[in-house]
């Protein structure tokens, strides 16, 4: 672990959670942080353990799993660069609700929970932004729940592909940056269901290239229609409206 306030503050100021913060607050927050690096397949945090820190993922992918009342574990999400986890470290005597395992070598910024909590107590407006962060997370989870309830596996995959699609000439292409099996888990389906969903989407002009690492979408608007996305969901003026949907 290394401590490097300037480099850490340089990352924090571009993280969407903190980018509205004044520079002096960013620097103060950076002083509570340290770089951490985890090898692939490493447990970063474990459910039910005391929550001592939050982590901002800087580079890498991690799998979020939830343990039910019976003690069974299941993956509920896959997180990547720029995402923050472990907000329960801000709560007095908080315990992690989830486990976090790296899928590849991962670099993160560790934020000490107790010190961050004290910082927020002294900076009410920053505490409000953290409440907004958590609210945003809750709204994302609400959308995810709705997706799981209302959309088919192929529709969920279609929306995921649209979210990362880049226009190239008259088509859109989506690079797959993670293994298909990991993507299947992120979307809440088995590898077999994922394959069937991809096959279904091929009927709608979605094709695989470069050994499956590039997905080409011949008609993004038609796919969006088929996935049941409304105009407002597509044109909310956000940086990436499809991403917001998933």
């Amino acid at each position, binding site marked *: 672990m290394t401590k490097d306030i300037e480099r850490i503050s340089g990352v924090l100021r571009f993280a969407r959670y903190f980018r509205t913060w004044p520079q002096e607050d960013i620097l103060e927050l950076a002083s509570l942080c340290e770089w951490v690096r985890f090898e692939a397949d490493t447990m970063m945090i474990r459910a039910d353990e005391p929550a001592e820190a939050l982590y901002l993922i800087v580079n890498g992918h991690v799998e979020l799993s939830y343990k039910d009342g019976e003690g069974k574990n299941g993956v509920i999400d896959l997180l990547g660069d720029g995402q923050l986890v472990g907000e329960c470290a801000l709560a007095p005597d908080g315990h992690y*609700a989830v486990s976090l395992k790296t899928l590849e070598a991962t670099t993160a910024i560790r934020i000490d929970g107790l010190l961050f909590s004290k910082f927020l107590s*002294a900076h*009410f407006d920053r505490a409000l932004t*953290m409440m*907004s962060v*958590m609210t945003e997370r809750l709204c994302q*989870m609400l959308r995810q729940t709705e997706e799981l309830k209302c959309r088919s596996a192929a529709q969920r995959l279609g929306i995921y592909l649209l979210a990362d699609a880049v226009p190239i000439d008259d088509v859109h292409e989506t690079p797959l940056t993670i293994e298909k099996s990991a993507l299947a888990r992120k979307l809440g389906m088995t590898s077999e269901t994922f394959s069937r969903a991809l096959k279904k989407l091929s009927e709608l002009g979605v094709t695989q290239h470069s050994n499956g690492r590039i997905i080409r979408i011949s008609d993004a608007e038609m796919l969006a229609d088929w996935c049941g996305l409304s105009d407002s969901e597509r044109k909310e003026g956000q940086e990436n409206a499809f991403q917001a949907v998933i």
Partner: protein
Amino acid sequence: MHSRPLSDADRDVMSQVPLLVALGQTRLTSLLGKCRVECHARGAHLFCAGDIADRFYILLSGHLRLVKTSPQGEETVMNFLTEPGSFAEAVSFAGRSYPVECQVIEDCEIVSIPRDAYLAILRSAPDVAGSVLAGFLRWERFFMEEIYKMRHTRPIQRIASFLIDFEDRNGEKLDDPNGTNFPEKRQIASRIGITPETFSRSLRKLEAAGAIASGPKLQIIDRAALLELAR
């Protein structure tokens, strides 16, 4: 809708709500002094999706339903609120709009708390911000549990689990023949994210296992068997 002053019993309920307890007794008493109990009849709407969340709520009694409507007009029940407690606090504090619609499905009594009034008090006591954030974690756990169930459990498990949870939360009322019963079957199906056809098939299996009676009104016959099927 009509309103009335808070009773001692209402104050007792509200002083159990973590979000309010965090304020400390003096500030809480000051806040409650400005509140009234609103009585809403079945069929009323507390708020619609897209309304600015300028207040959050404490449910004292009654049943509410949170519904998300798709752009195609299809309704999905996201949650039933049947226990006393706070709701809509996260979106309210963040100054966002409500992401769902809130419908009254059984006459209810609620206290609505203006966001600005609460935050003004909180600003005078920033040391309790951590406790307030902790209140949000309750909802985070709720959604994690939801997502986990949707991804990793079979429909029959979700039905069994829902019936047990609902009975646990509303046991006394369910024992009363004139009291509240389980929500309508199609609403349960929507709440746990399965199609009405799958719901009907699963109910038949639960009935065949002797766990429930699935007539016009659902009834748990063998709780132990239902618990086993929920696992």
